């Protein structure tokens, strides 16, 4: 079962592996994932790549008991909105923590993990998940 466009995934490796987003020099807004154009400044926006520090805080979270295909063997797991210390808010999985440690306000740091596999013969997706520190 190949679900993903391999070239599309490949273009996103640096974003997924290293938390590489972008920054609008005009309105000073950070974006992750990176934007093609600044939605605020439009044609006046000047975007440049920006690698965000892999530290953040849980803004809110949910425990997933019925995961989508590809994540169904991982249940139950936590998904959180994470406010990066020097960047925007993103959504990601929280790993290696009992659920009583997954709290609003908890400090988290990124870890490199397998996100999902395109079946037994497809590509393996890697990227960042987060653990409570």
């Amino acid at each position: 079962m190949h679900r993903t466009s391999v070239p599309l995934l490949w273009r996103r490796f640096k974003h997924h592996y290293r938390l590489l987003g972008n920054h609008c020099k005009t309105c000073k807004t950070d974006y992750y994932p990176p934007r093609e154009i600044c939605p605020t400044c439009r044609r006046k926006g000047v975007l440049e790549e920006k690698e965000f520090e892999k530290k953040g805080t849980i803004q809110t979270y949910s425990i997933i008991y019925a995961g989508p295909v590809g994540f169904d063997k991982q249940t139950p797991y936590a998904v959180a909105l994470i406010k990066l210390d020097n960047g925007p808010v993103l959504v990601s999985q929280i790993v290696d923590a009992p659920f009583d440690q997954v709290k609003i306000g908890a400090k988290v740091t990124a870890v490199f993990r397998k996100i999902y596999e395109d079946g037994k013969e497809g590509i393996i997706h890697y990227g960042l998940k987060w653990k409570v520190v």
Partner: protein
Amino acid sequence: MNKVELIMNNSKKALDNGVGIIGYGAYIPKRRIKAETIAEVWGKDGEDIKNGLMIEEKAVPGIDEDTATISVAATQNALLRAKINPREIGAIYVGSESHPYAVKPTATIVGDAINAGHDYTAASTEFACKAGTAAIQMCAGLVKSNYIKYGLAIGADTAQGAPGNALEYSAAAGGAAFIIGSDKREIVAQIEATYSYSSDTPDFWRRSHAMYPSHGGRFTGEPAYVKHVFSATQGLLERTGYKINDFDFAVFHMPNGKFASGMAKKLGIPFEKIAPGFVVKRIGNTYSGSSILGLCATLDVAKPNQLILLTSYGSGAGSDSFVFRTTDKLNEVRNAAPTVEDYIKDKEYVSYAQYAKIKGKLHYGGAQ
């Protein structure tokens, strides 16, 4: 038998090969399963198993961890200690017998994850449990001959053991990474010498597409592990002029505790000298990560100007033996990243059912 001599220096003492470790990093997954938990499933006596193998529990990867993720985590710790720009790394070798892909290198995943750029050579290597030390030799050779400034050598595994097989008590997950360089101001442990001993000895193998390895039972002992580890170590001593008592610490590959401690005894090394690196008791056999995690744990406690003997073993079969001499720089970098002990203590036990799910030992039938 074929003896291969690598990176040698013929002087007797205080050898300076001009190459060494400038950063080291370990990673051990958080989950553990106890030997008695596995023994209970198969109707065995857990105490017997623990005493026989000298393994109390083993590290189990998370469902989202594999050799690539372990390699990246260990490398990130090595970089914290080396404090170099990853783009100056000219070679990445990942040694493992559980690479995520049969065809596609783990090393390039690591390269992109650490932002090493593209100016590097890379390969995934395999030599059972010694592919990590082979990677160290490859990097040391490239650095010493000035082809590259820094080399990254990794040994990592998420080892497989068939349900009910003796390997199930030992086959564990973990890895270590080493950045090899030649600038004396950066070196934390000089590689004074290395020597290898190899032969075609089929003591343990896994055929293509086979899910679990096979092994020759007792044949893995005397003609395999014992012969190669002993011969490589003896060969190293003969060529360097060192005596076994010159070493402050020793690390041997740890397929189980019995083999490694037995080798120390055979060579006349007191257990205290292998104790710091004797991680097998608490995390199991991390295959390509085994002896080099022992080296990391030893570097975590060693003082400057101490000698460490390391001899790995890979089934099939071969051993790489090394002399490392620690430097003053070691004390400066040690606390820049988590120690092996930090990882060993940070643990969470899983049941056999959870372990079976994580390791893909369950058959889901049509409910995939």
